[in-house]
C-alpha cells in the first residue's frame, strides 16, 4: 500500500466524523489518525518537549548573567523605551547597510507578523477551530492577507540572504583563520529553517483552501501572488488524498521546525532573535563616559576592591554578557573599526564571538547536568594583550551596531584588569609613569606648562587664573601645552577667545593631564588622581565656564568629571560668537578645497557635528567638501592621548587611510578640531607622500588666520 492509498483509506474512515464539520474538506491535525495513532498526541508532545528543552537551555544561558558583575540599566526608562521603538522596532540602524538592511527589515517584520500565526498554529494542532482572540472579524481577514505577504516576503528575503552568503560574500562576513571556522554553514542552515517555516505554513493553508475549493466549500481569500496563493494554484490538480497528506505533513513539519528553531536560537548567533529586544532596552544611554570600575562602589572606596577590571568572563557586567549572546555576527562593527581596517589584531565582532563561545563552553548545556567549567584568565587564552590595546576607543563600532552592543567599556574593563596584573606594554609604561610624576605623558616640567603663551602676538594676554580671577577657564591640556607644533593651537585659541571678548585664564602649572586616555587605558587610580587635582584647581579658580580646544579634554571634563562648570569646545565658542556678532571673520583668500574631519571625541562621543562646520562656513568663500565617511561615520585618525605612545602591530596607519579619503573627496586641506588628529594627519600626509598636495590645519588655527 503506497502512502496515497494510506491517506485515502483513513480519510474514508474519518469521513463520518467530518460530516458534522462541513466547513473543511480536510481533516485537521487535531483529529487526524495515522496508523491508529491520533496525531493530536504529536500536537501536544512537540510543544511540551520543545518548551521544556527551551526552558532548560535558557536557564543555563542565564546562569553566567546571575554571576556577572552588577550593572546599572534600569535608569532613564523613557529614553530606553524610545531606543526600543527606534532601534529595535523601527530598525533605525539597519539601512546604513542598504541591501542587508532591507533584507533584515523584511525578515524582522515578517517574524513579528508571523509570530501570531505560529502561536495560533500550535494551538490549532490541539483545537482545530481555534482563532486568536480578536482575530475573528475583519482584523483576522486583514491579518491573513498580511501574514501571507509576510511569509512570501520572508522567503524571498531568505533567498536573497542566502545568495549574498554564497555568491556575493560581503567581506565583512568573512572569518579570518585565527578566529576559527567560517560561519556560512550556520547562517545557511538557519535561512533553511526559516524558509521551511514559511513554506510549511503556506502549504498547510494552501492544501486546505485547495481541498475546500475543489469540494465547493467556503474558500478563505488568499492574498494574490503570495506564496500560499501560488501553492493553491499548483495544488488544484492534486487529489484529495494528496492534499490531506500534505496538509498533515506540512503541519507537523511546521510544528517541529518551529520548536526546533526555538531551541536552536540560544545555541548561536541567532540568539539575537530573542535577546535583541532586551539588549536594545538595556543599551548605553549616556555617551562619552566610561563605566565605573564597579557599579555600587564609590570612587573613594575603590581601594577596598580586591581586583580591578575584567580578568575572567564573569567579571564582565551582566549587560556585557548579554551583548555577547546578542551579537548577530553581522560584522558591521568590524567593518567600521579603524583598528581592523589597518590590520591591527582587533576585530570587535570577534570580541563578542569569542566571549560568547567562552560562555557556551564554560556553561555547557550538553550533556545534561554537566558541571560549569572554572573560568580561566581571559587574557592570553581568549583575548590577546595587543588585541585589547589596539582599540582607539573611537566608538565607530557602537555607533553602527544595530542592536546596541558596546565595546569601549568592555575594552576599558579588560585593560583595567591588565593594568592591575601589571600587563602594560613598555611603550605605555613610560608615559603613565611620567603622568604620575609630572602630570603629563612626556614628563616635561610642570613649570613649563604655560610656556606656549610666550609665543602669543602683541595684545593677546592670557591670565594665570590661579592668581587673577577670570570668568572662563581655558583648559589647555598636555599636548597643546608642550608639543612644539600643537602650541600653535593654544595660541590660536587664545587669540580667538580674546577677540571674542572672553575674560579667560589658564591654570598653568596647576593643570594636569585631563586624563581622557588615562581612564580609557585602564589606569583608573591614576585617572582618579589627576581628576581630583584638576577638579580642585578648577573649582578653586572660580571660573564659571570652561573652554578647551582639545576634544579629549572636552569629553573627559564633560562626561567623566563631576561637579564642574559647563564645558564648551572652541568650535562651539566660535559658532556662537559668529552668530552673536562677537566674532567677525574675513573671507577666504585662496582657492583651496577644504574638508572637515570629525574628531571621534567631538563627533561620535558628543554629537558636535554642526558647530565646527558652521565655524568653517563663517569664512565666506571657503570651499568645503565632505568626505564619504563624515559625521557619525567619521574614521579615526589613529587615536590620541596615550595612543600616540603605543606601538601597535599594523600594516598601515589609520591616518594614511584618512588622508587618502580626503584626497578622494577632492580636498587639499584637512581641517580638524583636535590636536591629536592634527599630529596624526600631518604624519600621515608625510607617510602617504602627499606633501605639497595635502595639508592639515586645526580649526582654531584657520579661524585665527581669518580673524577680522
Amino acid at each position, binding site marked *: 500500500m503506497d502512502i496515497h492509498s494510506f491517506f485515502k483509506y483513513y480519510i474514508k474512515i474519518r469521513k463520518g466524523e467530518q460530516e458534522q464539520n462541513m466547513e473543511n474538506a480536510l481533516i485537521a491535525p487535531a483529529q487526524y489518525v495515522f496508523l491508529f495513532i491520533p496525531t493530536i498526541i504529536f500536537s501536544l508532545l512537540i510543544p511540551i518537549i520543545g518548551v521544556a528543552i527551551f526552558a532548560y537551555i535558557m536557564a543555563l544561558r542565564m546562569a553566567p548573567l546571575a554571576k556577572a558583575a552588577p550593572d546599572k540599566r534600569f535608569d532613564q526608562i523613557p529614553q530606553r523605551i524610545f531606543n526600543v521603538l527606534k532601534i529595535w522596532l523601527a530598525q533605525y540602524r539597519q539601512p546604513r547597510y542598504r541591501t542587508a538592511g532591507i533584507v533584515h527589515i523584511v525578515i524582522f517584520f515578517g517574524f513579528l507578523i508571523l509570530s501570531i500565526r505560529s502561536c495560533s498554529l500550535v494551538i490549532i494542532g490541539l483545537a482545530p477551530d481555534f482563532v486568536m482572540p480578536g482575530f475573528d472579524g475583519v482584523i483576522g481577514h486583514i491579518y491573513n492577507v498580511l501574514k501571507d505577504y509576510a511569509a512570501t516576503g520572508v522567503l524571498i528575503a531568505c533567498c536573497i540572504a542566502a545568495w549574498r552568503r554564497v555568491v556575493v560574500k560581503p567581506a565583512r562576513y568573512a572569518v579570518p583563520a585565527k578566529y576559527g571556522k567560517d560561519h556560512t554553514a550556520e547562517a545557511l542552515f538557519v535561512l533553511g529553517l526559516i524558509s521551511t517555516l514559511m513554506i510549511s505554513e503556506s502549504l498547510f493553508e494552501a492544501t486546505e483552501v485547495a481541498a475546500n475549493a475543489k469540494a465547493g466549500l467556503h474558500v478563505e481569500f488568499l492574498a494574490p501572488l503570495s506564496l500560499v496563493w501560488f501553492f493553491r494554484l499548483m495544488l488544484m490538480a492534486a487529489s484529495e488524498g494528496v492534499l490531506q497528506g500534505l496538509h498533515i505533513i506540512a503541519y507537523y513539519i511546521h510544528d517541529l521546525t518551529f520548536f526546533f528553531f526555538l531551541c536552536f536560537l540560544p545555541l548561536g548567533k541567532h540568539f539575537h532573535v530573542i535577546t535583541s529586544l532586551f539588549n536594545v532596552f538595556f543599551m548605553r544611554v549616556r555617551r562619552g563616559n566610561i563605566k565605573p570600575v564597579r557599579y555600587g562602589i564609590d570612587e573613594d572606596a575603590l581601594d577596598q576592591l580586591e581586583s580591578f577590571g575584567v580578568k575572567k568572563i564573569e567579571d564582565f557586567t551582566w549587560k556585557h554578557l548579554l551583548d555577547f549572546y546578542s551579537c548577530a555576527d553581522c560584522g558591521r562593527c568590524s567593518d567600521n573599526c579603524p583598528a581592523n581596517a589597518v590590520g591591527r589584531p582587533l576585530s570587535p565582532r570577534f570580541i563578542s564571538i569569542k566571549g560568547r563561545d567562552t560562555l557556551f563552553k564554560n556553561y555547557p548545556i550538553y550533556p545534561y547536568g554537566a558541571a560549569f567549567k572554572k573560568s580561566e584568565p581571559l587574557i592570553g587564552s581568549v583575548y590577546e594583550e595587543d588585541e585589547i590595546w589596539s582599540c582607539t576607543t573611537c566608538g565607530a563600532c557602537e555607533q553602527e551596531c544595530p542592536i546596541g552592543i558596546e565595546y569601549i567599556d568592555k575594552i576599558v574593563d579588560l585593560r583595567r584588569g591588565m593594568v592591575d596584573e601589571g600587563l602594560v606594554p613598555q611603550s605605555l*609604561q*613610560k608615559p*603613565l609613569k611620567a603622568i604620575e*610624576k*609630572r602630570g603629563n605623558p612626556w*614628563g*616635561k616640567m610642570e*613649570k613649563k606648562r604655560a610656556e606656549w603663551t610666550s609665543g602669543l602676538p602683541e595684545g593677546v594676554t592670557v591670565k594665570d587664573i590661579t592668581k587673577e580671577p577670570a570668568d572662563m577657564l581655558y583648559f589647555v591640556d598636555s599636548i597643546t601645552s608642550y608639543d612644539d607644533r600643537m602650541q600653535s593651537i593654544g595660541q590660536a585659541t587664545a587669540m580667538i577667545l580674546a577677540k571674542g571678548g572672553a575674560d579667560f585664564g589658564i591654570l598653568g602649572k596647576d593643570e594636569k593631564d585631563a586624563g581622557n586616555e588615562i581612564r580609557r587605558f585602564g589606569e583608573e587610580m*591614576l585617572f582618579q588622581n589627576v581628576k581630583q587635582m584638576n577638579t580642585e584647581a578648577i573649582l578653586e579658580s572660580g571660573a564659571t565656564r570652561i573652554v578647551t580646544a582639545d576634544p579629549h579634554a572636552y569629553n573627559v571634563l564633560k562626561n567623566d568629571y563631576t561637579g564642574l562648570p559647563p564645558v564648551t569646545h572652541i568650535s562651539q565658542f566660535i559658532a556662537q560668537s559668529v552668530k552673536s556678532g562677537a566674532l567677525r571673520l574675513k573671507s577666504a583668500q585662496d582657492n583651496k578645497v577644504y574638508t572637515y574631519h570629525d574628531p571621534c571625541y567631538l563627533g561620535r562621543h558628543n554629537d558636535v557635528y554642526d558647530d565646527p562646520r558652521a565655524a568653517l562656513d563663517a569664512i565666506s568663500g571657503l570651499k568645503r567638501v565632505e568626505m564619504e565617511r563624515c559625521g557619525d561615520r567619521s574614521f579615526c585618525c589613529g587615536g590620541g592621548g596615550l595612543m600616540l605612545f603605543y606601538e601597535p602591530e599594523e600594516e598601515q596607519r589609520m591616518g594614511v587611510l584618512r588622508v587618502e579619503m580626503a584626497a578622494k573627496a577632492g580636498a587639499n586641506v584637512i581641517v580638524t578640531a583636535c590636536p591629536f588628529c592634527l599630529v596624526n594627519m600631518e604624519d600621515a600626509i608625510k607617510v602617504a607622500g602627499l606633501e605639497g598636495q595635502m595639508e592639515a590645519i586645526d580649526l582654531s588655527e584657520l579661524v585665527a588666520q581669518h580673524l577680522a
Partner: protein
Amino acid sequence: MDILVCVKRVPDTAENEIEVNKSGSDIERDDLVYSVNEWDNYAVEEAIQIRDNVGGTVTVVTIGDDESEEVLRREMAMGADSGILVSDKAFEGSDGKGIATLLKAVVEKGKYDLILTGAQADDGAGQVGGMLAAMLDYPYASLVNKVEVKGDALTVGREIEGGNQEMNEISLPCVLSIQTGINEPRYVGIRGIRKVASVEIPTYGPGDLGVDASLVGTAGEKVKRLDYFVPVLGEGAEMLEGSTEDIIAKLIEYLKAKGGLK
C-alpha cells in the same frame, strides 16, 4: 630560591631636565623627580619570574635615605616579598666600595642563593655588582640578558660584541648584574603601591649590619667627586638645534653629504 635584588633610587632622566648647579658640585636637584633605576626594574622582574617558576622568595634592598623607601614599595608592588632599607647618617656619601661593603653585610645577615643588581645605574659607574661579588667571594656574571635555573646552577646568557650571544653555566650562590631587555618589567600603578603601603620595611643601621663605620660613608670614601660640568663643544662637533623635525632634516642632510646615506 631566595633572591636578593639590590636597587637604587635615581633622578629620572626621562622626566627631568638635568642641569649642573652653579658651583659645579652636583646637579640641580630642586625640580627633580626620582624613580627606580631602570636596570633594577629588570633585575626585580627577573627575580620574580625565577621565584614564580621554582619557588622561593625575593627581597629587595636599597641604600639611601627615608625617601628611598618609595622605590622599595614600588618593587614590592611588582611582587617582591619583602624589602630592606639600609639607612644611616654614617652611610651617606658612600662610594662604590662603601655601597658594596654595606650590601655584603646585608647578604651575610640573610641567606640568599642569588644576588641580582642592575647592570648599572643612571647616575652610577656600574661597579657595585662586581665589587660585591669579589667581597663575598661569589662567582659573578655581568650584563646578563638570560637566566635559566638548572638545579643548583644557573645558565646565564650575555650579549657580547657584535650582538653575539654567549652562554655560561654559573654555580650558586652567585651575583649577576642584569641588562635591560632581559624581560618586560610589569607595570606598577598607584593601586599596587597602595596595596603594600602598610607592609613593614625594616631599616638597618650600622649596629644591625655590624659594619665598621669608618669603611663606609664619607669617612670611608676613597673615590671623591671633584667636578661636574657640561663639556665644551670640541672641534668638529656641532649641536643641531630647532624642532625635532628640523634636527632630523639637518641630520639626514649631513649624513647624505658625508656619504653615510645613499
